[in-house]
């Protein structure tokens, strides 16, 4: 199989037109010493049927969320995806197009991104947004880089409740430009303390809700940042929370970023996902990646086009705001379709269902005698202390229950802490069983 259509006669005709006798002659600009002598050492090719059997056999070795009772969240959320999302996103006109450089034959992708940008603005309460970030981790890192450019300062405070992987990505991305990263202290209720900021601070970065589930007081954090002339950045890995909580933009946050996977993008072992990043209008020229704007064609019809491209790498090269050139098209489309399907009331109702399930789970686990270490309010995720967690966790996985993320894997001091997430994919019965098994 190689999906090549040429007949032997056609190859002959083409070689004759080019003026060479063999296909091998077309490679004569590669010095002989650099040409491969042996064939690549790869396994023998599989037919369509045998490829599927081969992949399926490996897929069956996984204990996926769909095949278990899973309470894992922590930056990747198991939500129901309506059939319509996959049906529409699979259309070849969307899936096999590329970056909409030629706007006249790319209006479908362009209008969808414009709609995505609008919905991210509506959810975050900010003025500009785009669809150009790989995932929540790199979105947080790009927001940090934006703050360094905007303030010409180097110090960034990270909340200790910022996803540990996001913290690591920010560290990797900002090392080359010499940022100084510091951790803020935590309060006993699980929220971040933001009062002690140095005067040369570029930004304060908080997660909403925090990694341990606690809902932060972003207005207070934004106020503290403003007092020292710093920017306040919020990071939201579970986007459904935005349907329930006050929009960051209304609370004084300057850049709201995060992960939109929860809106119709499958778990898929961590990718592809789609980061989002929204900011105040005045920061638009420092935004990384593609932006889509409205304009008209030569007959005055409304149309959409990539715009403000002078920020970007293909024009600015080493002076670009970022090296990004993706627009995460297919993931952007999934999110836009998903949000259109759920809509204004549906999205809110779904968020309330998630909150209700988590509230029920918290009380069930407490009734079973387990302690919840944090008193701050939560959305669909929270921490519970489980004595002898390591052994219990392993035993539950054996039974097809993944009870959450054992936090000792990330921080040895949290050996008995479990991060539990409930979504509409967890039934009341699943939760009752979790409470029973964790305390059995």
């Amino acid at each position: 199989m190689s999906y090549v259509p040429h007949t032997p006669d056609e190859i002959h005709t083409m070689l004759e037109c080019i003026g060479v006798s063999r296909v091998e002659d077309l490679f004569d600009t590669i010095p002989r010493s650099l040409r491969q002598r042996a064939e690549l050492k790869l396994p023998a090719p599989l037919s369509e049927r045998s490829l599927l059997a081969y992949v399926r056999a490996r897929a069956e070795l996984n204990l996926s969320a769909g095949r278990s009772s899973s309470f894992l969240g922590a930056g990747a959320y198991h939500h129901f995806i309506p059939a319509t999302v996959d049906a529409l996103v699979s259309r070849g006109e969307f899936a096999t197009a590329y970056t909409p450089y030629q706007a006249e034959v790319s209006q479908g992708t362009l209008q969808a991104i414009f709609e995505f940008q609008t919905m991210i603005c509506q959810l975050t309460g900010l003025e500009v947004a785009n669809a150009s970030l790989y995932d929540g981790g790199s979105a947080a890192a790009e927001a940090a880089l934006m703050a360094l450019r905007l303030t010409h300062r180097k110090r960034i405070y990270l909340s200790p409740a910022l996803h540990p992987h996001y913290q690591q990505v920010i560290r990797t991305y900002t090392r080359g430009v010499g940022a100084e990263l510091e951790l803020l202290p935590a309060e006993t209720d699980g929220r971040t303390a933001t009062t002690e900021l140095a005067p040369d601070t570029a930004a304060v970065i908080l997660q909403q809700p925090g990694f341990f589930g606690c809902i932060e007081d972003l207005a207070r954090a934004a106020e503290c940042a403003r007092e020292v002339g710093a920017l306040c950045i919020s990071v939201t890995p579970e986007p459904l929370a935005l349907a329930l909580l006050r929009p960051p933009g209304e609370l004084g946050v300057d850049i709201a970023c995060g992960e939109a996977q929860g809106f119709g993008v499958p778990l898929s072992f961590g990718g592809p996902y789609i980061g989002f990043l929204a900011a105040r209008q005045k920061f638009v020229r420092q935004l990384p990646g593609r932006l889509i704007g409205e304009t008209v064609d030569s007959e005055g019809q409304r149309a959409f086009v990539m715009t403000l491209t002078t920020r970007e790498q293909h024009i600015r090269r080493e002076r670009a705001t970022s090296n990004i050139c993706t627009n995460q098209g297919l993931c952007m489309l999934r999110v836009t379709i998903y949000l259109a399907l759920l809509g204004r009331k549906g999205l809110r109702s779904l968020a309330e269902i998630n909150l209700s399930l988590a509230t029920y789970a918290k009380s069930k686990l407490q009734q079973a005698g387990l302690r919840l270490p944090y008193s701050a309010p939560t959305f669909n995720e929270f921490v519970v202390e489980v004595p002898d967690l390591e052994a219990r966790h392993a035993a539950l996985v054996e039974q097809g229950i993944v009870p959450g993320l054992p936090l000792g894997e990330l921080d040895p001091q949290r050996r008995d802490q479990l991060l539990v997430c409930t979504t509409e994919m967890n039934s009341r019965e699943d939760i009752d069983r979790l409470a029973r098994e964790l305390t059995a």
Partner: protein
Amino acid sequence: MSTPGRSGLIFDEALLFERSRVDRPGIPLEDPEVPCVDPREVIEPKLVRDDIEGFPELSELDVVRHFTRLSQWNYGIDSGFYPLGSCTMKYNPKLNDLAAQLPGLVDLHPLAPETAIQGTLALAHELEEALAEIAGLDRVTLQPAAGAQAELVGMMMIRAYHRSRGDDQRVRVLIPDTAHGTNPASAALTGMEIAEVKSGADGILHPEQLAPLLDERTSALMLTNPNTLGLFETHAEELAERVHAAGGLVYLDGANMNALMGVAKPGHMGVDVMHFNLHKTFSTPHGGGGPGSGPLAVRNILAPFLPTPVIHREGDRYRLDNEFPYSIGRVHAFFGNAGIYLRALAYIRTLGAAGLTEVTQRAVLNANYLLARLREQYDVPHDRRVMHECVLTDRRQQATGVTTADIAKRLMDYGFHPPTIYFPLVVHGALMIEPTECESLESLDAFIEAMERIANEAATSPELVTGAPRRPKVRRLDEVRAARHPRLRWSAPDAES
């Protein structure tokens, strides 16, 4: 000849927000069977929002029609010939989409316990080994989410390598004037400085042009091979030797691997680290601009600096290893774009060694055939044998007032997606054409005939070309207006000032 045919009914379609009707029921949600909680009872009311103002309210059929209509305004590989240079718009096999989305893979949580992810790790490890073999290098990471992120990661690794040897002063990255814009942008993000290397009059790099730029500050040469003119860098091996002799490393932008697979290995040309664009060479969907996937292959000397986590194999068990003391760190929240790289694995496993080599041979055959035919009417800036793509200019058409952009727009009227235009920057009015291996002689001939007709139109009735396109849903756009008065989101009419 144009792609014959008429358009079906192409509808206008308002924005989602304009189609919305208050209280229109959307898709129903399931009753959770637990007591409903009023958010304000469990969260301080000042932290709770009332409504998502402006959000659409639509029925399922509204949404299906909306996105179906939008899709019909797009041109994809599935619609027709898409010779966008440097982007390798080859056929995206439907089989690979299905394979990567099988249950067990598509619903696997990235933080599931090690025992729960063995199947995906086995597939990922197999892909790493296949890519290492194709590259002729030692180790591969699948972490980078796109080619541009891979460039950034590769340059970070190079910098970490120099620092580990006490060579903190090695901060200058040499980049040819034909390189993709991401190369300098990525290198600059690591805090290094960029020096441009001029290519010769023949369109390729020459060791003597590179030599004066090499010294104890040299960090790396970032090479694209074949370069963006579609030309093989014939002196690749000597360029690498010179960079290595000066203490630098060689990075390869692997965007153009569709010209090399099975024919030549970058590792044999002195390349130390390279990325693959799986959405180009390995047929994963371009998706309207993403998501991509940019695995990075490295020589053993760079392996200690790979981003974490790294897949570690012990017998028939796999684990994700984070204990890598010299690692540059984490670059992605989880483990790269599994949903994309598993498609690439399906492609490699169904083609095998002979199939991949055939891909390269036919891609190069198609590009050379196009060039042989098109050079009669269009100016060719560099008269050398091309690999997988060719570059033309609008020099012969300039006198008529017709530009490269006009030619591109006119191609739409003939039913084709235009080539990449005005890139590489070293060629005036460049038209960069990459046919890929998947196109038949008939589709190449139809494109050639359209290009010939356009050349004739430019000479005889240029307004046909400068007034294009007429066939798509919208005519030529006012890009200046979009940039001068940016409207980057919809607002309710009464909310506008």
